[in-house]
C-alpha cells in the first residue's frame, strides 16, 4: 500500500465511518425521535469526509438549518458552490464504504434497522466524549447534519444537496 493510500485508510475507514453514521442517526433521532430513511445515510460520509464542508457545518448555527448551510457556498466569501454539486458524485463513489460502515455500526450495536420500513434508528444515544478532539469534532458535525436533515423531507434534502436518490 502506498503512503497516500495508508493515510486515506487512517481516516476513511469503515470503523470511523460507523462512528460518523451513528452520530448522524443520533442527531436525526434527537429531533422528535424520528428515524432516518435508509438512502439518506449514503450522503453522510461524502459530506463529513470533506474538510471544507465540515468547516462550514461547524461554522453554522444549529438553529439555522441545512438551507442556510448550503446557501453559504453560494456566497462570494466562500466561493465553493461546486463542492455541493460534488456531493452526489462522491456519494456514488463512497457507496461501498458507506455500506461497510453501516454494517460495522450495526454489528457494534450502535444503530439498528427497521427492516420493514427501511428506516434506521440509534440503539445508543449517549454522546461519546473520550475520543480524540479531531474525531469528536467530526462526530459533532455529523450529529448537526443529522439534526438538520430531520427537519426536512427526503425530497427537500435531495433538492438542497443536489443528490438524486
Amino acid at each position: 500500500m502506498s503512503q497516500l493510500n495508508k493515510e486515506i485508510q487512517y481516516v476513511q475507514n469503515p470503523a470511523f465511518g460507523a462512528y460518523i453514521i451513528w452520530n448522524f442517526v443520533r442527531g436525526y433521532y434527537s429531533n422528535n425521535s424520528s428515524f432516518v430513511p435508509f438512502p439518506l445515510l449514503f450522503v453522510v460520509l461524502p459530506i463529513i469526509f470533506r474538510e471544507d464542508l465540515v468547516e462550514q457545518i461547524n461554522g453554522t448555527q444549529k438553529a439555522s438549518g441545512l438551507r442556510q448551510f448550503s446557501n453559504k457556498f453560494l456566497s462570494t466569501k466562500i466561493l465553493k458552490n461546486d463542492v455541493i454539486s460534488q456531493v452526489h458524485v462522491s456519494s456514488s463513489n463512497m457507496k461501498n464504504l458507506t455500506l461497510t460502515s453501516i454494517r460495522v455500526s450495526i454489528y457494534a450495536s450502535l444503530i439498528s434497522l427497521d427492516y420493514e420500513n427501511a428506516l434506521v434508528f440509534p440503539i445508543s444515544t449517549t454522546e461519546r466524549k473520550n475520543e480524540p478532539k479531531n474525531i469528536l469534532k467530526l462526530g459533532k458535525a455529523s450529529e448537526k447534519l443529522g439534526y438538520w436533515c430531520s427537519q426536512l423531507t427526503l425530497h427537500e434534502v435531495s433538492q438542497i444537496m443536489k443528490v438524486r436518490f
Partner: protein
Amino acid sequence: MNFQIKKLILWPKKSDLKPKEIEFELGKINIITGASRTGKSAIVPIIDYCLASGSCHIPVKTIRNACSWFGIIIQTNDKQILLARREPGLNKSTDEMFVLEGEQVTVPPTPHKNTTRDSVKKYLDEQASLSFLEIESDTTNNYFGRPSFRDLMAFCFQPQNIVANADTLFYKADTTDHRTKLINIFPYILGAVTPDLLAKRQEINVLLRELRRKEKDLSKLKDVAEKWKIEISGWLSAAEELGLVEVRNNLGVLSFDEQLEILSSISEKKASDSSILNRNIQASSREIVALRREESEISLKLSSFKNRYTEMSQLMDSIEDYRESLTIQIERLNISKWLRSLTEDEDSCPIFGFSENHPKDQISKFYNSLTQLEEESGYTNKIPAAFEREYESVKTEIDKLSEQLTAVQKRIRIQSSIRNSSADEKYTMENISRFLGQVQYASETFETLGSDSQLSLAIANLNERLGVLRAQVNENAIIQRVKAALRTIEGYTIKLLPLLDSERPNDPVKIDYENLTVIVTGTDGRDDYLWEIGSGSNWLAYHISVTLAFQLFFNKQNHSPVPNFIVYDQPSQVYFPQKLAAKENEKDLDPKLNNDEDQIAVKKIFKTLSQALSDSKNAFQVIVLEHADKSIYGGIEGVHEVCEWRGENEKLIPLEWIN
C-alpha cells in the same frame, strides 16, 4: 422557466380560523373580478412580497391587520414550492420566511420561520439557473452586478399605476437603481450574453490583470518578481553559510537591487576570502528547515486545489452540454438497485449477506420500502449548477501557488546543492570556488533578465490567450444578437397590437431597451416615443402587447430564467367612467361600463390575452384583476374565472377575520 402561481394563501391572525386559499389554473387567463375595495389590487404586492421583495407594499389596515402570514404555491416543471412570509407588523418588511417544497405540498395550518429572505432570494436565483457571474466583471458598480431573480419581476407584474403608464413600461423600473440594472442585464435576459460569455469576460479580466502584473515585473523586477527574489536570497543565504558575506537577518527587507549588488560583490570574491563560522552554518540549517516546511505547506494546498479543479472540470464538462440552462445531468444513486446487485439471490440480506435471521419476506419488504423512499424523494435528472466564478478563482489560485512552489523549490535546490555536494568536501576551497562560479553565472543571469526571460515568454503566452478569448467574446456579435431578439419581440408585438384598441394599430413598433420604452414609427417617418403619444387607451395597448410579446419570446427560448406568469391589475381602467364625478355615497359602488364602444374595447383586451396564450400553446399564465365581469369575458377561450368578489362577505379578507 416554468414557474406559475398555483395558489395564493392567507393565514388569519385569529388562530382558530382556517387559512384562505385562492387557487389559480396553470396556462390560463385567471380572472378575479370584483367591486372596488375588495382587495383585488393587493394580489400583486402579496405575490411580490412572497417572492422576497425588499419592502412590503401590501396595503395596511384591513389586510395587514387580519393576516399573520402571506403565501404562494409555485408550480415548476417537477415540483411545487410554497413560499410564505410573515406579516411585517409595524416594520417595513420582515426577513422571516417559510419554504416548503415537494412534488405536492400541503398547506400547513400555520407556517413558522425556517428560512430568511436572503436565502429565498438565492434559492430563487438558483431555481432560475441564473449565472453568478457579474455582467461587467471588472467593476464594483452595483448596476453591473449579476442578474438576480428579483430583476426579472419587471416582466411579471403590471400593477394599476403601470399598466397604462406612458413613462414606464416595466414594473419597478421607475427607480434609478432598478432601471439601470434592468437595462444592463437586458442582453443577458434576451439570451444574447450567455453564461459562457460571461465566464470568458471574467477570464479576460483575470488575464489582463496578470498581464499587467507581469509587464510590471519585467520593467521593475525589484518590486514584484517574487520568484527571482526568492532565488537571489537563496544564493545569498548559501554565501552566508560559506562565510563569504556576513550573516544578516534582514535579507527579506533588502530590495532586489540591493540584493543584486551584494550578489555581484560576492561574485568578485575569491575562495580564500571565505571564513566559515559555526553560527553561519546553524542559521542556514534553520533556514532549510523553514523552507522545507513552507514547501510542504504550499504543495499540500496546491494538491487540494488541484483535486478540486479536477472535480470541477468534470462537472464543467457536463455543464457544457447544457450551457444555456446551467445544469448538469446526473444518474440517480439508486441504492436499492445497487444493493440488489450485490447479493446473489433475492433471499440473502443485502446488509449481512446471510438469510437465517432475515426471512425472505422481510427482505422483500425492505426492498419495497426502500424503493418507495427513493420515489418519494422525487426525481429530476438535471440539477442547477452555476459555479463559473469558483472555476476562475481556483484556476488563478493554482497558478499563483505553482509559481510560489517553484520559487521555494528552486531556493531549496540552491541551498541544498551546497549541502549535498558530498559532505566531506563541502566546505573545501575547491567547492567554494565552484560556488563562486555559479554565483557569477547567476548574477549575470539576473542582470540580463529583462531582455530574454521566462517572464517575457509568459507575457507572450498571455497575450496569445487574450487574443483567442477576445475573438470569442465578440461584443459586436452580442449587439447583433440583442437586435435579433428585439426584432423577434417586435414581431410578436405587431401581431398583437391590431387586436387591441389603439389609434395606430399598423405602425411598426420598436423596443428601445436602453430607455425601457417603445418607439412607434409613423407613416411620415417620425419616431415617436411612448410618452409622446396621447391617450390612455394607446398606452394600454402598447403595454399589453409588449408584455405579452416578451412572454412569447421567453417561451420560445431554450431556457429563459424569467418566470412565465404575468399579472395585470385592472387593464380596463382607462375605459371605466371617472369616479371623481360620482356622488359621495356612490363612490364605493361597482362601476359599470355603460358605453358600448368601451365594452368592445375591454373585450378586445381579453381576446388579445387569449390569442397570445393560444399562440404559445398555453405555455404561460395570466392573472387579471378586474372590475369587468362575465358579460365581457364570458365565452373567450382560455379564460378561467377564479372568483367573483361582489356582494355579502365576498372579499379577499372574510368578515369573520376582522370582527
